[in-house]
């Protein structure tokens, strides 16, 4: 699971998807944050549907391969399924139908649908906007937005060494396979995995000592320089207005329903 791919997949770009690809990373992060916060507080079907539609529209416009993104979205739905299925039966309210004597309520079903739409709309927006950035660019964007440099440094180091340590993990797994280790549901498997993890931590610690020496040798003073040129373009202002309009529309739909009712 490499976070930094040496050969990113080639993507056919239309004029619109080129415009999406050039979106300022800072705008991507901010737009996603505001979108997520607003969506998590909405309760009106019209507003929720608009948010989900906007996420799908952006996915289509971005020209990103949609299969892997939708597969990740479906994986998340699998995780929350059991909670959503329970909700109609545990929320008191207008009875809707009953299974084996347990009544489902309209309010509960509605709460489950609300969570389902919110979670999917936000995950889609996340995977399309900041999710298509290089992890290093995401780190730099966060730093430019005022996230403490130390935290950004930690993120950049983590991103850098995930790939390295994944390689180390795969080598050790190969060595275990060569000795006829197979994963089973038993104590031997768990203890072997524990030794594997322990060895990874020992090697990681020793590697970090070498990394520190090498960095000190090059004059490391506690912060990585942010080498990028994030420039706000006129197109970004237009996008920002677009996102602003979407957010306002979401809030207006919610407010119209709440105060109209």
């Amino acid at each position, binding site marked *: 699971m490499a976070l930094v791919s040496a050969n990113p997949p080639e993507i056919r770009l239309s004029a619109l998807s080129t415009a999406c690809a050039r979106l300022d990373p800072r705008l991507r992060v901010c737009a996603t944050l505001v979108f997520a916060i607003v969506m998590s507080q909405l309760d009106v079907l019209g507003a929720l549907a608009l948010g989900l539609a906007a996420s799908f529209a952006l996915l289509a416009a971005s020209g990103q391969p949609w299969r892997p993104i939708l597969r990740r979205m479906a994986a998340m739905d699998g995780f929350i399924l059991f909670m959503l299925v329970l909700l109609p039966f545990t929320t008191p309210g207008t009875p809707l139908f009953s299974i084996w004597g347990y009544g489902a309520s309209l309010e509960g079903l509605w709460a489950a649908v609300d969570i389902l739409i919110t979670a999917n709309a*936000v995950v889609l927006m996340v995977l399309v906007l900041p999710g298509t950035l290089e992890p290093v660019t995401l780190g730099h964007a966060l730093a430019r937005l005022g996230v403490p440099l130390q935290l950004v440094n930690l993120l950049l180091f983590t991103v850098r060494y995930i790939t390295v340590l994944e390689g180390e*993990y795969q080598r050790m797994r190969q060595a275990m396979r060569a000795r006829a280790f197979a994963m089973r549901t038993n104590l031997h498997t768990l203890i072997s995995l524990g030794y594997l993890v322990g060895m990874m931590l020992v090697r990681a610690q020793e590697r970090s000592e070498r990394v*520190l020496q090498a960095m000190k040798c090059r004059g490391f003073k506690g912060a990585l320089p942010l080498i990028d040129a994030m420039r706000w373009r006129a197109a970004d202002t237009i996008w920002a207005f677009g996102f602003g309009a979407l957010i306002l529309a979401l809030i207006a739909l919610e407010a119209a329903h709440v105060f109209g009712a």
Partner: protein
Amino acid sequence: MHIVDGALSAPVLVAGAALTVGGITLGLRQMTLERIPAAGVLSASFFVASLIHVAVGPSSVHLILNGLAGLVLGWTAFPALFVALVLQAVFFGFGGITVLGVNTFNIAMPAVLLGLALRSLIANAAPTMAAVWGALGGGGAIALTTLFVAASLVFSGEAFVPAAKLVFFAHIPVMVIEAAVSAAAILLIKRVKPELFTGAPATAFA
């Protein structure tokens, strides 16, 4: 155990975010210049370890190892686990954005608590006894995390009570797995490189 966007109420989200900001601040204060590479490389190794899947009958679960992270990293486990959750949310779509604060607190706070409680015991114990403390740390951290997750759900709505109970009982196998893996990992570390648990967390530059 990732809670998604839309499930929790606003007060729970705000409380989780505030507590996580506090935890990260404390963690970053411990992360001096000398410790940045160690924290980064160890944070990456915990990220890779969380990709390991263990079969449980027909299904499988992935390792979390937050107890082990707390033992090795101390308060730095807070920013390290936050970074891992951000990367998972943004690039893999696990979890959510508004729930980042709550999710980080639920995973990192048990890690830090058990780390504080057991680190010196493990540093001074013989390898086998250290492994016993390690099992307690690994299993205990998951037990606490499931309780925190259940509490976040219940504080958001009474309707979540059965789901919260289910979360706890469904994670009992995970507690056993994490206890065994953490114990074995600590047994090995105590034999190979016991310095990892002496001195301030995540340093050992002696």
